[in-house]
């Protein structure tokens, strides 16, 4: 028997690297995501590579990019989702910044701005058809005031889908930006004011840089919602024309034309386009400041 070098137990060595029993707390959540998200995704990729209507593995994708019926839907989706996302986030920033500090009725105003989240797409569509339609209240008011001669068309076209994305997406953007904005320590702005920075300088050099990382995340989350727009494209848009979006095509292929293989292919393209956007935005975010947004002592 040779004398063994006294080695700490495996448990201790693992604990030193941060692995101990408390990590088990995260296991159930990870398992759920693996089984219900990762596995279906892999399954979807394999399904999309075994076409139902064609012979070669990549024929679903080839069909998508060669047939204008399919590839125009990608453009339609981008043309609706990108402007809606940017409008939501850019509108949310100034409002959130102004609502950081307590003032009378702040809570009520915040609640009022968040309420549209609870309306749901079908309610929104219903109301928008009533208000914005050719004989709706808006057109009646504008005609009555003599501002327009003919009713403006805001439903069953691009505008209908765009406006519904703004009304349903803005509250989320606002809520997130308000959270990020109120996470910025007021003492930072006070310090800048003490040093002689005026209102716009304080925004430009203190608040805005600290908000950018949060704005990037908000932009991504909002884009996810806008890019997968589906019910409002059917109800408020022109589903056979300008608002024939990717999500609609994916659904129609999978559950109406009973070709889950093609449906999955369209869904995977949707996911890929999505990821490209997110990677671009988060890549830009990594170039920005990523420290704490609180002030130091003193």
């Amino acid at each position, binding site marked *: 028997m040779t004398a063994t070098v006294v080695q700490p137990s495996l448990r201790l060595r693992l604990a030193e690297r941060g692995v101990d029993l408390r990590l088990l707390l995260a296991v159930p959540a990870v398992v759920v995501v693996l089984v219900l998200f990762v596995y279906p995704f892999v399954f979807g990729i394999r399904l999309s590579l075994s076409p139902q209507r064609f012979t070669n593995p990549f024929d679903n994708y080839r069909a998508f990019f060669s047939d204008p019926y399919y590839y125009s839907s990608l453009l339609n989706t981008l043309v609706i989702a990108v402007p809606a996302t940017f409008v939501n986030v850019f509108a949310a920033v100034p409002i959130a910044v102004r609502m950081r500090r307590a003032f009378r009725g702040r809570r009520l105003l915040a609640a009022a701005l968040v309420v549209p989240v609870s309306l749901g797409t*079908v309610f929104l569509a219903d109301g928008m058809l009533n208000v914005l339609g050719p004989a709706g209240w808006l057109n009646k008011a504008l005609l009555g005031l003599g501002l327009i001669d003919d009713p403006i068309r805001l439903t069953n076209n691009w505008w209908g889908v765009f406006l519904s994305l703004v009304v349903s997406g803005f509250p989320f953007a606002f809520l997130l930006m308000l959270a990020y904005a109120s996470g910025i320590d007021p003492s930072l702005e006070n310090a800048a004011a003490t040093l002689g920075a005026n209102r716009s300088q304080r925004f430009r050099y203190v608040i805005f840089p600290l908000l950018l990382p949060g704005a990037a995340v908000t932009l991504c989350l909002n884009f996810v919602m806008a890019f997968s727009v589906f019910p409002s494209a059917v109800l408020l848009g022109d589903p056979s024309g300008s608002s024939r979006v990717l999500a609609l095509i994916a659904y129609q292929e999978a559950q109406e034309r009973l070709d889950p293989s093609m449906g999955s292919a369209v869904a995977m393209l949707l*996911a890929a386009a999505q990821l490209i956007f997110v990677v671009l935005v988060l890549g830009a975010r990594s170039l920005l400041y990523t420290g704490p947004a609180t002030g130091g002592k003193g």
Partner: protein
Amino acid sequence: MRKVVLSPSGWLTWAGVAVFLTFVTSLIVAVVVSSFGTVWLGTWLPAGFTGKWWEQTWSEFGLGNTLLVTLEVALLVVLISVLLGVPAAYVLARRTFPGKKIVSLLLLLPLLVPPITYGIPLATLLYQWGLGGNMTGVVLANLVPSLPFVVLTMTPFVEQVDRRVEDAARTLGAGTPRIMFSVLGPLLLPGILAGAVMVLVRTVGMFELTFLTSGADSETLVVALYAAKSGAGIRADQTVDAIAVVYMLSTVLLLLVALRFVNPTQLVTRVKEAAND
């Protein structure tokens, strides 16, 4: 009172807010008015008012059952997401371990991918497993975005709890379960409530996943509403309006309850404001 001086950009901001709120209010008023109207064609207000659409909603549409299904699905999803999500958020907020980046990415991904993309293969799989078209399938599908949402929203809340509070409890001999329930739990409660209500609202409003996985007796309100609205002609528009009002009232109620009891935006600032008083 402090005198309020607004800059031009301030005016622009508040004018935008006013336009937005006016628009949203008019949407809501229009649907409510329409649900009580007899005939409404191109005039400012309907020709007459009646309550018969509301009666039809209860008798024909089976609204009571749909509401029950919606509530069951949403509460189950909230319960499971919070029970599994909060411990995971704790691990991600407090610990460093090999592979942490992969785990956080894994728990973030379902939020970065639109539901319809994984919903289509997931629905195909759930039907293969015999779980499609019933409530189990709907709950499972809805967990996919809800659980990561709880993890994402709870992680900063855990980070905001002073680590020394936890260390003190550990020094005094409390184990991890005790710390979870007696120390972190109460401190995280506002965050948990905020997250739970957000998940509840999201699940009640989740269209795509429920639409793809539900069957005739597991439809939630939003799917039933879409079916009623897109199958135009089968049902009077006013009945659809009435169902839409019910949907809106239930979610607005949830949201207002949430905003009344918790401020989902920040714990830190409130604590700080209180300390400065």
